[in-house]
């Protein structure tokens, strides 16, 4: 490891002090809540209120905060920092494969463990853990360079907001599902929480509007938008990143031809979202939160949104560095990081490896029809696979896993649904194929700008 910068500076330590102070105050409030709501636990044969454990934790945070706020005179010697062993372990484990598996694993875990996660205490512990992780990571120079960039601050905020609303919707859904199972009325019906639009709703909206505007103005003044060097057609910044909300698309472009990733798949996403009301045949769950009654719809949507969109934004923002290589969160962005990949098309693999011959090429000067024939012959395997994927799989799904769906939806709606799902699945499939077999294109016909 080359020592290119100080990990910690006085201002960072001072700033973290304020963050811990905030955390301390938040936890003081939580102690109060816990004192009134949580009962006691048995510790060493004695009943101890849960609140006392939280109080201990809050006191610790208070001390940490004081240490930061007063101890910034010798940053080199400051001890509260992310351990190097942890950093190198995370860096060596991280890669596109582990990142993607982790995000999918997390997604599955959230759905399976939803009844446990939505408990307020669990939610609070997760929030604290993520904030402390962020605070400790901030003591690393490379992490701070990327996560603390003014450009990237909204993305960190977005992550917390996204997690919070997912948590909230699951909390409401689990509550309603429990009520349904017990034969009780829904939460919103029992605790009639209806309010008047005028004045209650309009007033709270007005207050929100004022607060958000004030926040945006303050943000705009405090964090300056970064300006880069003047644009030049001869020089592309390295790495060159799309606006953050498009980083999912940019990551898709790594695996697909611009036509597919830039035109076909995005239009499929838009059209698919518009088609949802028409292909949805489930009449339950209308106007209230539920998970059990809409398992398929909610999981499919969340899969497309969380691992395939939000996680791709995270990957693109924080983990893609110069030359679009993958970098661990604490890794130095080395422009010369060497990652050799030799990507092959299916046709190359088939003709060179399996058949042990050359690729079929039309003899020079042959007419249009012969050339087309040769190109189709060259790519036959990929074409067959693609056609099979889009034409054979849907009927197969109709008679196996989706049999009930097929019966209830009818032919046309089912075909639309299955094709949309297959298109969505094509992204992770292609990613996995690229990582495991260095596959470039399934069908590669650059002559016609047709690469899949």
């Amino acid at each position, binding site marked *: 490891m080359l020592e290119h910068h100080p990990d910690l500076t006085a201002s960072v330590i001072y700033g973290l002090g304020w963050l811990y102070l905030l955390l301390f105050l938040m936890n003081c409030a939580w102690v109060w809540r816990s004192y009134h709501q949580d009962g006691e636990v048995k510790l060493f044969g004695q009943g101890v209120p849960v609140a006392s454990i939280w109080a201990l934790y809050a006191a610790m945070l208070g001390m940490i905060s004081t240490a930061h706020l007063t101890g910034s005179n010798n940053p080199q010697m400051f001890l509260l920092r992310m351990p190097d062993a942890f950093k190198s372990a995370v860096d060596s484990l991280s890669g596109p494969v582990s990142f993607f598996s982790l995000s999918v694993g997390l997604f599955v875990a959230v759905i399976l463990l939803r009844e446990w996660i939505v408990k307020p205490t669990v939610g609070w512990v997760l929030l604290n853990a993520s904030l402390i992780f962020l605070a400790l990571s901030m003591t690393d120079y490379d992490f701070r360079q990327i996560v603390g960039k003014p450009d990237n601050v909204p993305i960190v905020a977005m992550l917390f907001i996204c997690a919070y609303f997912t948590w909230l919707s699951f909390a409401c859904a689990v509550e309603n599902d429990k009520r349904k199972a017990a034969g009780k009325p829904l939460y919103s019906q029992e605790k009639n929480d209806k309010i008047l639009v005028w004045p209650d709703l309009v007033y709270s909206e007005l207050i929100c509007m004022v607060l958000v505007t004030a926040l945006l103005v303050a943000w705009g003044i405090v964090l300056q938008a970064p300006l880069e060097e003047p644009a030049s057609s*001869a020089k592309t910044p390295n790495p060159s990143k799309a606006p953050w909300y498009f980083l999912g698309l940019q990551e898709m472009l790594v695996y697909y031809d611009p036509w597919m990733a830039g035109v076909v798949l995005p239009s499929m996403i838009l059209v698919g979202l518009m088609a949802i009301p028409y292909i949805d045949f489930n009449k339950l769950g209308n106007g209230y939160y539920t998970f059990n009654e809409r398992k398929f719809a909610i999981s499919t949507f969340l899969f497309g949104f969380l691992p395939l969109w939000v996680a791709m934004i995270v990957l693109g923002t924080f983990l893609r560095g110069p030359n*679009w290589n993958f970098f661990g969160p604490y890794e130095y962005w080395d422009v010369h990081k060497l990652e050799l990949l030799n990507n092959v098309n299916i046709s190359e693999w088939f003709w060179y490896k399996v058949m042990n011959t050359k690729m079929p090429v039309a003899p020079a000067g042959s007419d249009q029809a012969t050339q087309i024939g040769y190109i189709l012959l060259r790519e036959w395997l990929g074409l067959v696979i693609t056609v099979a994927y889009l034409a054979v799989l849907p009927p197969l799904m109709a008679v196996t896993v989706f049999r009930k769906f097929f019966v209830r939806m009818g032919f046309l709606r089912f075909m639309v649904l299955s094709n949309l799902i297959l298109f969505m699945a094509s992204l992770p499939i292609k990613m996995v194929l690229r990582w495991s077999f260095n596959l470039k294109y399934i069908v590669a016909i650059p002559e016609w700008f047709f690469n899949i």
Partner: protein
Amino acid sequence: MLIIIGVCIWGALLSPFAMAWTALAGVTGIATLGTARFMFPNVLVEPPSKFKIGPASDYPLNAVSNKWKDQFGVWIVHTDQYEGKDLIYALSTVCTHLGCTPSWLDGEQKFKCPCHGSGFYITGVNFEGPAPRPLERVGLRIAEDGMLEVDKSMKFQEEMGQWVDATSFVDGSLA
């Protein structure tokens, strides 16, 4: 003029609706044409497509010259790695994936694109990342005065079998 009058008379005879639609179509059509006019500016500030780049001896074997990249968007490559022949050729600096400008990495001996990570050998042939085809060559020849001359109005694509074209390279033994 006559046509417009004719159309108006015809529309008036037919019905007010037809006239309204005709007028609308006419106005929209003219507005579209007016917009399309912007595609053909009166002055075009572009570097000339033909330019001299000095004698062949300026370009040593197995080196990529960045000299003309900023101004004209070409690399001059002299190498014997493409099919074992000693060639000088000019590669366009446009990535064949989505059009970013790759950079030549001397240490790794490859062109690497910062946008989605496509990599190309010194020959211009793609080998990593999503780029579906090799970088394009532009025209190169030895002018009458013995200097190399690039002609960016021609381009040669490997996958179309155009790299055998004699205007797409210059014999490297002249260097």
